[in-house]
């Protein structure tokens, strides 16, 4: 349809032009120029057809108008303004645009003032225009607009191109013609090339079209009424024209500024023209009549219309001629380029890439990418989460979708059907030509017809046979001969499955076997074959890797470059070592053991260097490189926990059921577990369920339940023995040592008065008799038997509770509170000052560390020894250690051979002296 219409128009045009007696050439040029515009625009040809005729009429009028340039000025702005809204409409869809057009026309008249500035901008744009051949044209064009402003004379001078001025006047009517021509051209796709050629010839005349445009603008003023009615399309055209401009390289910024709000619009319309392709263009051009459109048209001719293709063509020297076919190709190319670039820079704005391509006139992906890399602050897509299609997140998902089957795991293999069996057997017979088909089939059958696993079993058997050669005695081990007298011991063992068979080799190699190409293999067999080959490759790689390691180490050894691990004193190649921040080298194994000990054992949260004099710690990067995941996780967990605990020791409460930690204001008693899987409400103090707690005190609640009551009392007794770190809240128990207790967090406290201390100044430094109070001061004593003091308190609690119970229940139902009575505790007078054990590392059972579950009961009595001979001072009281409070901590210790006895959570003992 479009074509038809186009042809008709062409005819009109020709007749028209002849009518006027204008130069054909001029028309052509114009037409060419307009074509470029048209290429951008997809507007339906038919609609515009009638308009064109009208425009022709307009042309006549225009001549008159040209005389009064002042009028034109106001027109421009009008045109421009409407364009903005129009563009928006255009982007949405051409159909919608029409209705919108009408209001614009009215706007045109009103907005006179701004137009000049706009014009200037436009000119600037023109200058900026990258196109070479066109640049001249652009310059020429610029004057055009200026004329509109008033200083025509200058323009004439500037417009030396000569033909322009006169033609301009004449031409003005042409815009209408142009549109027609365009339609023509568009319609006649084949002829285009010819026209292009012409266009090239006429490049010099390019100016004319612009002028025409101006003229058109003038007409528009006069004919606005008509235009509005009929030419709704026109404004659109303008918009289109602009759109391409913006898209264009350097001109863009200027245009953007000039048009302001319009800028965004134009970018989008572009793609449309491309898609719309050829037929559309005709209609838009008629729109150009407004002055601006003229200028734009000029540009359009040069830049926008041909837009993408144009530049290429410019380079070629073809000039302004819009080649639609070529354009199509180039558009394809740009589209491809854009797609490729977007794949690499998912966050870059598509329009920007387009601009880049146009501005830089580069069609090289490398150049584009380089440019983007060098200018990382390119405009980015907004509000869109950019997901790189190749990101690991996606990849992992994909991987999980296709679970890999381990064809070497016999237990997971299902029997295969007969056809697969036959193929697998054939393959195996090709693989092992010295083995009898019977053996192969037997083994295959035993292994449920699976190729991979059977082949592996055969390979292993043969390898073994080669290694276990009885003939190693020879000088040089000759490759063992496979003959009918030798055999392999085929053996397969996995789980409960165990098959064995002695297989003799064939006398001669098998001569005939069936081969398959990949396509003819059944999928399961093919999969297994691929799997086997993959595995073999992997194993070979792994063997190579090990060999490389070994060679590396040997080389180090040879060069005497082995480095001693400062911890285990072993010798290692550098690659096997890790280092603290200060560069002390340790082998990886030592670091792992050290971390294990520190994290699970003594519960340190800091992995300081193993070197005594080094205060550095291991950098996270090294830890992550070396430590196995479970230790690393635990380490981080521990660290985080400690930090939290240190930050809010008082307010951190753990759910007694799920151990979920949460912060609770210290005056709130009800703890509602935030763990969605728990949600239990408990009393912060007694840890009883809150719903049972209603109107009851913790004691009353506990009394309701005898066991609970006892537990609560016993916990109290325990609490008397536990010291809480003032800094991190960790519970501490002293099993031996002096009264200066230090928590794993580094805080120190006095065991006696529970005060936070720092160093030994807190304690009495006066020498005095054992057990006797100091006469010189009232300070705490560094060495006392802690159990005495604690026991006193504990006994008091116990007695009190028992009394109470007795009162309540009577003697009969009395139950002992606390641990079962031990043999009567005979307190022995301490003979000497036996300040209880000094920091000792005897491997006596100790209190497990912080996350204790149940402490070992009474500490083994410490028997005073002298010269390794037990002193006969009778039995020593076993200190009472009540069960610890219900401190369930969710540390599921992995199976690591950490011995509990070494897990002392705290350090008792004097501060380290400065070492030399």
């Amino acid at each position: 349809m479009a074509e038809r219409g186009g042809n008709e128009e062409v005819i009109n045009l020709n007749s028209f032009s002849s009518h006027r007696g204008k130069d054909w050439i001029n028309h052509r040029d114009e037409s060419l120029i307009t074509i470029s515009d048209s290429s951008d625009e997809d507007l339906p040809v038919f609609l515009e057809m009638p308009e064109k005729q009208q425009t022709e009429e307009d042309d006549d009028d225009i001549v008159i108008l040209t005389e009064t340039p002042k009028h034109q000025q106001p027109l421009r702005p009008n045109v421009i303004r409407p364009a903005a809204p129009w563009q928006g409409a255009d982007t949405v869809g051409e159909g919608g645009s029409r209705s919108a057009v009408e209001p614009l026309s009215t706007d045109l008249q009103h907005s006179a003032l701004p137009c000049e500035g706009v014009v200037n901008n436009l000119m600037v744009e023109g200058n900026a225009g990258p196109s070479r051949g066109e640049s001249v044209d652009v310059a020429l064009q610029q004057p055009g607009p200026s004329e509109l402003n008033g200083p025509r004379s200058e323009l004439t001078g500037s417009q030396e191109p000569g033909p322009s001025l006169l033609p301009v006047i004449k031409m003005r009517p042409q815009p209408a013609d142009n549109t027609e021509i365009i339609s023509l051209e568009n319609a006649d796709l084949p002829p285009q090339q010819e026209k292009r050629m012409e266009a090239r010839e006429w490049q010099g005349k390019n100016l004319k079209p612009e002028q025409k445009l101006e003229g058109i603008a003038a007409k528009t003023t006069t004919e606005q009424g008509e235009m509005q009615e009929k030419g709704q399309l026109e404004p659109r055209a303008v918009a289109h024209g602009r759109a391409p401009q913006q898209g264009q390289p350097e001109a863009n910024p200027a245009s953007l500024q000039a048009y302001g709000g319009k800028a965004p619009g134009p970018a989008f319309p572009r793609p449309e023209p491309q898609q719309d392709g050829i037929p559309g263009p005709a209609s838009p051009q008629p729109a150009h009549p407004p002055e601006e459109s003229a200028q734009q048209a000029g540009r359009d001719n040069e830049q926008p219309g041909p837009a993408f293709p144009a530049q290429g063509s410019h380079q070629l020297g073809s000039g302004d001629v819009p080649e639609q076919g070529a354009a199509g190709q180039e558009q394809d190319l740009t589209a491809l380029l854009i797609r490729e670039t977007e794949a690499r820079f998912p966050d870059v704005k598509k329009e920007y890439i387009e601009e880049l391509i146009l501005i830089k006139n580069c069609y090289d992906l490398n150049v584009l990418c380089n440019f983007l890399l060098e200018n990382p602050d390119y405009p980015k897509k907004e509000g869109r989460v950019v997901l790189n299609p190749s990101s690991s997140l996606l990849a992992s998902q994909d991987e999980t979708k296709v679970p890999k089957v381990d064809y070497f795991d016999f237990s997971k293999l299902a029997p295969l059907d007969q056809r697969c069996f036959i193929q697998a057997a054939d393959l195996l017979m090709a693989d092992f030509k010295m083995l009898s088909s019977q053996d192969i089939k037997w083994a295959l059958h035993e292994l449920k017809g699976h190729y991979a696993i059977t082949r592996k079993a055969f390979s292993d058997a043969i390898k073994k046979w080669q290694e276990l050669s009885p003939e190693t005695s020879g000088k040089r081990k000759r490759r063992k001969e496979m003959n009918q007298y030798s055999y392999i011991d085929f053996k397969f063992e996995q789980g409960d499955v165990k098959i064995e068979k002695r297989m003799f080799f064939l006398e001669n190699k098998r001569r005939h076997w069936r081969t398959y190409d990949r396509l003819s293999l059944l999928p399961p067999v093919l999969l297994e074959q691929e799997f086997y080959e993959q595995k073999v490759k992997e194993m070979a790689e792994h063997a190579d890797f090990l060999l490389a390691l070994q060679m590396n180490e040997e080389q180090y050894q040879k060069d005497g470059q082995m480095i001693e691990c400062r911890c285990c004193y072993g010798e290692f190649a550098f690659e096997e070592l890790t280092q603290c921040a200060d560069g002390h080298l340790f082998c990886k194994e030592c670091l792992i053991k050290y971390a294990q000990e520190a994290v699970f054992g003594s519960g340190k949260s800091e992995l300081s260097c193993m070197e005594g004099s080094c205060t550095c710690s291991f950098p996270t990067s090294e830890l992550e490189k070396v430590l196995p995941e479970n230790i690393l996780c635990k380490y981080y967990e521990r660290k985080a926990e400690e930090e939290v605990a240190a930050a809010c020791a008082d307010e951190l409460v753990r759910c007694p059921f799920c151990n979920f930690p949460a912060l609770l204001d210290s005056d709130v008693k009800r703890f509602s577990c935030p763990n969605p899987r728990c949600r239990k409400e408990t009393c912060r103090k007694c840890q009883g369920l809150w719903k049972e707690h209603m109107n009851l005190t913790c004691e009353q609640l506990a009394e309701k339940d005898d066991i609970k009551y006892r537990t609560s009392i016993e916990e109290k007794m325990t609490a008397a023995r536990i010291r809480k770190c003032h800094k991190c809240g960790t519970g501490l128990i002293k099993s031996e040592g002096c009264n200066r207790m230090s928590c794993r967090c580094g805080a120190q406290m006095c065991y006696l008065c529970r005060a936070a201390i720092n160093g030994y100044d807190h304690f009495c430094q006066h020498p005095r008799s054992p057990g006797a109070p100091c006469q010189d001061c009232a300070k705490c004593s560094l060495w006392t038997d802690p159990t005495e003091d604690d026991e006193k308190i504990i006994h008091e609690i116990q007695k009190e509770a028992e009394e109470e119970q007795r009162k309540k229940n009577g003697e009969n139902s009395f139950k002992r509170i606390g641990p079962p009575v031990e043999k009567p505790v005979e307190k022995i007078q301490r003979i000497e000052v036996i300040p209880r054990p000094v920091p000792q590392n005897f491997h006596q059972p100790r209190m497990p560390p912080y996350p204790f579950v149940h402490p070992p009961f009474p500490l083994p009595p410490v028997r005073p020894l002298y010269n390794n001979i037990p002193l006969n001072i009778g039995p020593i009281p076993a200190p009472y250690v009540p069960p610890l409070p219900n401190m369930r901590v969710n540390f599921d210790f992995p199976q690591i051979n950490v011995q509990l006895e070494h897990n002392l959570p705290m350090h008792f003992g004097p501060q380290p002296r400065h070492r030399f």
Partner: protein
Amino acid sequence: MAGRIAKELDEVRRWERARDVRTLDGNVRRWGGLLLPNNPPYNTGAFRFELTFSPNHPFEPPCATLRTPIYHPSVDLEGRVCQPLTTHAEWKPATRAIQVLEDLLLQLDGPDPRRLLRLDVARELQERPEEFRRRAEEHTRLHAEPRPDPHT
């Protein structure tokens, strides 16, 4: 880590302040030997020490005790000494056995007032130094082992 212990044993054996260092009961983790203090009143005798390593050595501290009775404010009647170096909090895996022994010897040579285990002895040392010295020498003479020939 047996390799490390063997190397450490070699090192301690080459140390002139200790003698007769060897493993006890064929257990490489239990060492015995003689320490030779420098200062009076203990420099007339040799004191047997025992050093026990954790099976987790060197990730857990070893433990040193004196097996020879000594009249010393920092050594209790069971031969234990306060050695912060070998506490869990202070122990570093790279600390060597010889450093532990050096620390022990240093303690014998010059009692650290902050590491007193026998306050009565300490008071005696402070208030009646001559008496302390006399007793200590007597004690050393009675209990300490004879000093080995320095050239062997």
